[in-house]
């Protein structure tokens, strides 16, 4: 029964409600079968058999409660496939180079597609879709140079990123109905996830380029240390939010400063230049 409700994008309280409702249903049917003369084990098996396949019911509930979610995931997967295969073919034709690393993209697009269509395996849908979307987003963020090859597809990438981000937030950021500080919680997640993804990837990209120009590998500590500090701060913010909501929202300044530290070498010289 738990596997059925794990197929939905519901909030935890809604999942608990759904679980209890369906468990009561099965127990009532079991009791009836036992009254008809079956043993407890037989009655339980019969009741579960009548309920049907977990993944199928879970998918039905998900579609009923979140219409269009599957269609949007399919749209994202389809456009991502077209984008990645388009890039592969374009570079292959124009430069006679096979970009094998694009296979990574094909794998992450397939993950999104698979979990959007899955009606066979009863898995924790929310977790897997969220992971697929995070990796899809990371892959797409690394594809910024694409319009060097194919100008008219330029606007497609930002649209795909927006759709990917929207689906990620809609899947992950669900809250209990009575949960306190809903707006603050949403703000903490949105600011942290967006800034860390964009900032972290951009900083990593810049530092890897610096390594390409001969900088030592230790330069990467400029990215990893602030990212580790950010992760600790993010965890602390979530844990303390219910007790000190205003303080935690204020601490987002610290989040911005920690992430900005990764770009310190690019921020300090221009600022110093202003005072000269």
């Amino acid at each position, binding site marked *: 029964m738990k596997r059925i409700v794990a197929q939905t994008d519901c909030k935890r309280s809604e999942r608990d*409600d*759904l679980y*209890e*409702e*369906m468990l*009561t*249903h099965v*127990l*009532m*049917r079991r009791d009836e079968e036992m009254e008809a003369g079956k043993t407890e084990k037989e009655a339980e098996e019969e009741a579960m058999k*009548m*309920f*049907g*396949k977990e993944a*199928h*019911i879970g998918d*039905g*509930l998900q*579609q*009923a*409660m979140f*219409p269009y979610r599957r269609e949007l995931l399919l749209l994202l997967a389809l456009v991502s496939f077209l984008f990645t295969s388009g890039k592969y073919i374009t570079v292959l034709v124009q430069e006679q180079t096979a970009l094998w690393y694009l296979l990574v993209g094909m794998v992450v697009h397939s993950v999104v597609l698979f979990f959007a269509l899955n009606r066979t395996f009863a898995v924790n849908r929310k977790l897997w879709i969220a992971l697929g979307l995070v990796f899809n987003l990371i892959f797409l963020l690394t594809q910024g140079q694409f319009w060097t090859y194919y100008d008219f597809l330029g606007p497609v990438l930002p649209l795909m990123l927006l759709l990917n981000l929207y689906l990620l937030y809609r899947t992950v950021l669900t809250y209990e109905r009575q949960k306190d500080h809903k707006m603050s919680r949403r703000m903490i997640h949105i600011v942290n996830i967006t800034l860390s993804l964009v900032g972290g990837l951009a900083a990593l990209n810049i530092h890897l380029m610096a390594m390409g120009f001969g900088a030592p590998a230790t330069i990467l500590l400029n990215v990893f240390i602030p990212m580790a500090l950010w992760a600790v701060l993010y965890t602390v913010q979530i844990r303390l939010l219910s007790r000190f909501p205003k303080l935690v929202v204020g601490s987002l300044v610290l989040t911005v400063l920690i992430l900005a530290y990764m770009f310190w070498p690019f921020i300090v010289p221009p600022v110093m230049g202003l005072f000269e």
Partner: protein
Amino acid sequence: MDKEMMKGNIDLILLSLIAERDLYGYEMTKKLKRLSDEAYSMSEGTLYPALKRMERKGWVTSYWSAPEGERRKKYYTMTNEGETELERKQKDWASLHSLLHKARKSYDT
């Protein structure tokens, strides 16, 4: 009874049942089975997604029969929007029925 036809009219069937009095899921399947003389057995995989869809559309609302911690049932009750929707669906069904009747009559004459 044709399962596909029943599936196509699931909202109408459930709304008609709930219009009479508040019901919980298991009770709905039992009542349907009894009313159809054991000919139609609605699976839970059809029932619960339909109830959740109708709840999302605001046609029905639900409440628990007892506080948390006890063995309790979730009852579904009709809203004003649900009543309006039921009337609309009943009208559609009546027009379809009348059309079928007329079509059959046209062959007889």
